[in-house]
């Protein structure tokens, strides 16, 4: 029983990363109809940025957690203005292709500077050790990730449901033409929303730095799983993406504990196949979002 609870907890922690990444993808997709292939690369940049800031400038984890998402969000906004926006008039596939090319470039830039080996990143002192959760001890840092990620998701939910910006974003996501017809300037929010999504990826990256191997390729394999997650949840649904993120984290963790590795690694794709068979638009997606 204790083992099961521990696996569940671990599943929620890795699900937190999926959820944060899927959330960023979904927000960007909702507003721009763009699937950002470089989302994994931005996650990697977040982690690498935290590492470089600590190793070369002595900037602590906490400052990195603040600075990297902001920096990447600004970079994302610049990118949206300079390129993504221009390609927006064409088939959305062109932006997918562009961000794929960008991924190759970003990966190789980091690789040429720091090599492919993983760099260690120490857990911040305040979060080292473990906490007693009653039945078992759990690393403090993982508890922190879970709480932090849930808080971020809740904050985004609050922003979307209780603020003016949120109403515009939701309206633009669900009925873009109608929103414009009401005289709401949707275009104004496109750039900040893109930057916000990229910032979320950077945030997930900084959070991952002390827990996962920091290397130039860390984002690439992860983003493909996140793609499967958003197909499962329904990319048009922000709630669905987050829920599917946590759900897949759980399923994978249980699979790793109780199934042979070949099953555990492919479980997420099997779930995706089942969803495509039974509910092609995704568990929480509406048929209309099947772009």
């Amino acid at each position: 029983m204790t083992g099961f609870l521990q696996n569940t907890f671990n599943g929620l922690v890795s699900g937190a990363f999926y959820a944060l990444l899927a959330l960023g993808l979904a927000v960007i997709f909702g507003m721009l109809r763009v699937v950002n292939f470089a989302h994994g690369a931005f996650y990697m940049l977040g982690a690498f940025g935290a590492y470089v800031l600590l190793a070369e400038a002595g900037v602590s984890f906490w400052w990195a957690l603040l600075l990297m998402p902001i920096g990447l969000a600004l970079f994302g906004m610049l990118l949206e203005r300079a390129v993504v926006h221009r390609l927006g008039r064409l088939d959305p596939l062109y932006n997918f292709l562009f961000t794929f090319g960008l991924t190759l470039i970003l990966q190789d830039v980091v690789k040429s500077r720091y090599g492919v080996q993983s760099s260690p990143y120490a857990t911040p002192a305040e979060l080292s050790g473990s906490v007693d959760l009653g039945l078992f001890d759990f690393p403090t840092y993982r508890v922190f990730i879970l709480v932090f990620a849930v808080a971020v998701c809740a904050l985004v939910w609050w922003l979307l449901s209780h603020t003016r910006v949120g109403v515009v974003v939701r309206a633009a996501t669900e009925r873009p033409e109608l929103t414009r017809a009401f005289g709401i300037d949707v275009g104004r929010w496109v750039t900040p929303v893109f930057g916000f999504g990229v910032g979320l990826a950077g945030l997930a990256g900084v959070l991952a730095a002390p827990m996962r191997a920091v290397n130039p390729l860390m984002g690439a394999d992860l983003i493909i799983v996140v793609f499967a997650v958003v197909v499962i949840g329904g990319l048009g649904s922000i709630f669905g993406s987050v829920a599917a993120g946590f759900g897949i984290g759980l399923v994978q963790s249980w699979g790793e504990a109780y199934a042979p590795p070949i099953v555990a690694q492919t479980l997420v794709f099997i779930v995706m196949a089942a969803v495509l068979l039974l509910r092609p638009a995704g568990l929480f997606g509406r048929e209309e979002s099947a772009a």
Partner: protein
Amino acid sequence: MTERSRVVTPEVAAGAGASASASAERSAERPAERPARPPSVLGAVAGAPTWFRYALLAVGLGVALWLPNGLYPTVAVDIACWALFAVSVDLLLGFTGLLSFGHAAFWGTSAYVTGLVAIHAGAPFPVAVLGGALAAAALAAPIGYLAVRRTGIYFAMVTLAFAQMVYYVANEWRSVTRGENGLQGVPRELAGLDLTDEYYFYYAALPIVLAGLFAAWRIVNSPFGRVLVGIRDNPARARALGYPVHRYKLTVFVLSGFIAGLGGGLFAVGHRFVALDVLHWTTSGKAVIMVVLGGIGTLWGGLLGAAVLVRLEDWLSFSGFDTIGLVTGGIFVLVVLLFRRGIWGSVAALAQRLAAGRRRDS
């Protein structure tokens, strides 16, 4: 339409899925705000006079026959294999409007199956390659069946995810694939001929490559291919005319998987070695880069893109450049931003404009 009817036969299911997602696709293809389709470069050559097309074909064949004399034979073999791969991706992207970002699954599966057949059964290499391509087509059927339920960007993500699944399976299934070590010593058996020299192997492999390319050309220029283009340009209309859109897409997906498999099998025999890389998403991406670079929807573009990219990568690694992705990624981004017609499409457009200008003058 009941849930049960969906799983009875692929045909029923495809039909049912079609009606279920009809509204979805209609809204997805909605061209209200932006022209949903890139400017079509299809027909760039189709408008040219017949003698020109035959001349082009003759030049193409001439280059194919000359290739290992002008380049390192190893590079020539690679170009031939990748050309098949790129053309198989173009068949979907350029002529059906489906971006498969997971074609490494078929290329790589065929490479492994070809290697295993050649090693364990000692079969002549064309037989092994055929076996590999059939295995790739067999894998393309279930993946395609699931993937064609989504369109556009979702199709790309779904194919990418399934390819990654195949990659993980190959990585874990070490007793067969030898995991990280790869399959070594794939033989090049053919009627007792000595094909150890790459130069001779190129000519032994060329008929298979040409057959694959001819198959792609036949598909595009058949009534079936016309329907595919119709589906690409207006799926709702194709469906309204009574074409089972899902079934057409699935068929071309399987055919494309087979052609990619021919390339992957030859690649395995050509390198006498199969590594996990053949299934990696970067391999899928490379084929997409070749198609976009050469020109989407032109077939010739795939060949050109393969030749340019293989040659470039060879040259870069030869000059000790270790960040190849920076260069290929950079070129790719430039092509996507500035030359969306690709090399072939740009040249064809230019030629057309010149021809039109001359007509106006006279």
